[in-house]
């Protein structure tokens, strides 16, 4: 991957210029809205902007921790399965007699535990990349959901439960309020606390951090636990939106979440990024989907568009990354061994030679 000769980038743009990517996203967002309103007369209503987010905000809760994960230099494809397992267990326990509020708490406990397991595996078996670990746990978690619920569905929640996903406080959807709060907490966590700084540090250069005495294991564990917790939130809102659940819910969520995060300007090489980008791209992709849907664009075409978007956004980022990070050596290739891929220790996503 691209090398940095120093992590202190003296040429780092200051002022408004450093928000280049976010500005680009905002313009894109406006363009999407314009095109959408051209395409369909039903688009430009207050209702669109207020209630459409209710459709995709449950996923958005996962984008917040995914931002952290990718900054850390990892990836997590098991989030959808954690949502499914949590949802199933919540429904089953409620139907078995547990009071709903307790079932909801149980959901959060379970999801956090799943995150904990992910993190635990990552720190105990550091040779293994997060990719393969979460690929396996993805199968296991959803597998457990299938064992429990097989091909049935479970639901019949109390009617107040649907308030989570469908309710308004005044004119504002409840889920939007919760999400904004969560986003603020994450922004503070990532950009102002010591924990957040360490996430950036570990993502930038894990080995150096370890030698500097930073407890990288705790950071990884912490991020995984947070991911689990947020998956629990997603599960609560998703289940509330449907009023019932099955083992196959949240299928494909990982792709959407990763796409939203990466499109938001979080570089997959790790160590840098800002929460603002993903926040914008959540709405960008959400409204893009919605607008296209209003024109009844077929699912196949949407698939292709999402795939292209994902690749395109990484491509563009890689291009805009390079000029600032060109090492002073004359060849464009890496002339010095990368500080990230020490022989013997496993490849996380940077150790990847590609």
């Amino acid at each position, binding site marked *: 991957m691209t090398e940095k000769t120093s992590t202190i980038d003296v040429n780092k743009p200051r002022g408004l210029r450093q928000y280049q990517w976010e500005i680009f996203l905002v313009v894109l967002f406006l363009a999407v809205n314009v095109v959408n309103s051209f395409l369909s007369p039903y688009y430009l209503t207050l209702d669109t902007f207020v209630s459409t987010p209710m459709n995709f905000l449950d996923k958005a809760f996962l984008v917040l921790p995914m931002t952290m994960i990718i900054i850390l230099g990892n990836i997590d494809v098991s989030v959808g399965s954690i949502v499914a397992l949590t949802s199933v267990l919540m429904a089953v326990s409620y139907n078995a007699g547990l009071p709903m509020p307790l079932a909801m708490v149980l959901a959060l406990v379970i999801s956090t535990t799943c995150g904990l397991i992910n993190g635990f595996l990552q720190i105990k078996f550091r040779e293994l990349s997060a990719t393969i670990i979460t690929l396996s746990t993805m199968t296991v978690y959803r597998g457990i959901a299938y064992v429990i619920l097989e*091909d049935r569905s479970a639901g019949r929640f109390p009617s107040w439960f649907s308030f989570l996903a469908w309710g308004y406080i005044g004119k504002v959807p409840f889920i939007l309020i919760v999400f904004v709060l969560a986003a603020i907490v994450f922004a503070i966590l990532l950009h102002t606390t010591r924990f957040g700084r360490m996430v950036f540090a570990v993502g930038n250069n894990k080995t150096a951090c370890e030698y500097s005495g930073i407890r990288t294991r705790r950071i990884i564990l912490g991020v995984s636990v947070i991911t689990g917790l947020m998956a629990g939130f997603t599960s609560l809102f998703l289940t509330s939106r*449907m009023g*019932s659940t099955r083992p196959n819910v949240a299928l494909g969520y990982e792709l959407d979440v990763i796409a939203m995060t990466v499109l938001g300007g979080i570089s997959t090489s790790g160590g840098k990024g800002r929460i603002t980008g993903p926040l914008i791209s959540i709405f960008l992709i959400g409204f893009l989907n*919605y607008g296209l849907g209003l024109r009844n664009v077929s699912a*196949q075409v*949407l698939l292709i568009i999402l795939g292209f978007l994902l690749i395109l956004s990484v491509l563009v980022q890689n291009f805009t990354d390079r000029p600032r990070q060109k090492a002073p050596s004359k060849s464009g290739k890496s002339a010095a061994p990368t500080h990230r891929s020490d022989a013997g220790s496993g490849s996380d996503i940077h150790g990847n030679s590609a």
Partner: protein
Amino acid sequence: MKKTFTVVALVLIALALVMPASVFAAEKAKYAIVFKNTGNPYGEKQMEGFKNGIEEQGFEAILRAPDLPTAEAQIQIIEQLIAQKVAAICIVGNDYDALVPVLKKATAQGIKVFSLDSSVNSQARLTHVNQADSEKIGQTLIKAAYDMAGGKGEIAILSATSQASNQNIWIDFMKKELAKPEYKNLKLVKVAYGDDLRDKSVSETEGLLRSYPNLKVIIAPTTVGIAAAGKVLTDKGLKGKVMLTGLGLPSEMAEYIENGVCPYMFLWNPIDVGYLGAYTGVALVTGKIKGAVGDKFSAGRLGNYTITKAPDGGTEVLLGPPFKFDKSNINDWKKVY
């Protein structure tokens, strides 16, 4: 740079606010059908029939299907349809209960909601368009198995996965039918699940053949399962020793009916199902029927229909008895669907 951005953005916003209203002329009423997933020829034919029926009556049809057969995906689509202020939504449900909140939202906005093929909770729908009487399906399939087995022997069922409501309803009726005295020599040894996956259905069929060497008949009430079983039986040269029947697409089963592995099987015309759905939808919107038992309406070339009571407490409209496909007619139908 910054200035250019701002100017461009402002211009775009201004355009957006001014233009759209003038661009769109008055439109015909829109009727939407939402199938379970995309890339399914049965679903494509259903939607085609729906489209024909709607356009025949002078309206516009919207055909949607998600790429994954999940309820969440259908919820998103329904939200988009609500925003487009469609007159009616015809839903082929991926889940009996999960769509209820969003369908109730649609109803609250004046949209007529009814289900087709795979039903949703009766509280969220006005009525359900059913291909055929579930009980009759069960009876017909058991009778076919009985005849093929020569009156006695072991039979097995190869199902899909009951993601939608129909499979288990049919299997339950089959079991009920088997309990009757005239079928006392027919024994159901296993219900296997092929998940509607080609390779899994093949493995399950092979498993059945290994575990029950005296198996006489396989009933597969799923289009993927019956085709997979047909292939396995053909490849193993078991024609005549193990018989196959069930519900299958004529195009998929043509080969196996012609070579005799499957003497006959059943289905109904999905085009007709969609067509009936179209007329049901229009009748609901124009107020001709309310979805209650006893309502009558005319469905174009299909004739007149009456709404009846459905086993789940709601109401339904039945297309008709299942249609039998065998050597004599498969050639005509295999190109249709």
